[in-house]
């Protein structure tokens, strides 16, 4: 079942923060976050496996709520290099990794 991402698109100025949400109608085994730049392949950012888990590196972090039905990706003090389309991918049971429709993030100077 495809997760729902919001917002569809966001425009930020350098240094601003953003939150991208990913939700499912049922409990998830895991949530993946990927970033895809124009003309390139998606690149892995992080995986969250446990309800209540939070992860992050540099100024990009994510959380996975206790009921394991929602995850949020936090981008703080955004940089031009953060621009791209962010996908959450979810997996439950034995199903393959299924992606949301993506959130297009544009960071401008």
């Amino acid at each position: 079942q495809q997760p729902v991402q919001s917002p569809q698109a966001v425009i930020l100025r350098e240094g601003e923060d953003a939150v991208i949400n990913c939700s499912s109608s049922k409990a998830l085994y895991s949530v993946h976050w990927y970033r895809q730049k124009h003309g390139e392949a998606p690149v892995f950012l992080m995986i969250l496996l446990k309800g209540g888990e939070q992860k992050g590196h540099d100024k990009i972090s994510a959380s996975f709520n206790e009921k394991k039905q929602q995850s949020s990706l936090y981008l703080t003090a955004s940089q031009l290099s953060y621009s791209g389309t962010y996908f959450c991918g979810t997996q439950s049971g034995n199903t393959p990794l299924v992606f949301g429709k993506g959130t297009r993030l544009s960071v401008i100077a």
Partner: protein
Amino acid sequence: DTAVSQTPKYLVTQMGNDKSIKCEQNLGHDTMYWYKQDSKKFLKIMFSYNNKELIINETVPNRFSPKSPDKAHLNLHINSLELGDSAVYFCASSRQGAGNTEAFFGQGTRLTVV
């Protein structure tokens, strides 16, 4: 060394033709995937395959078929190509299922059907 490689990178072909896209991974992964990314950038799972099980997205036309000569390869064969098949196709791999491990993507194959 490229972890997941696809060939060709670009493919232009006429309607009705049959074509194949090759994918190879040198990561020793058990599971490989094919995704289709359309003009709206939606990444749609087409197939998930390991040496034990093939999972097919039921919305994928049977003109599409995965062929795996060995664990390191998962090729995509498409019969009777249609205009709507134009998209970027990504191959990916991961250890076992993708549930708790990172999926690595190939660079994509841009298929244009004319």
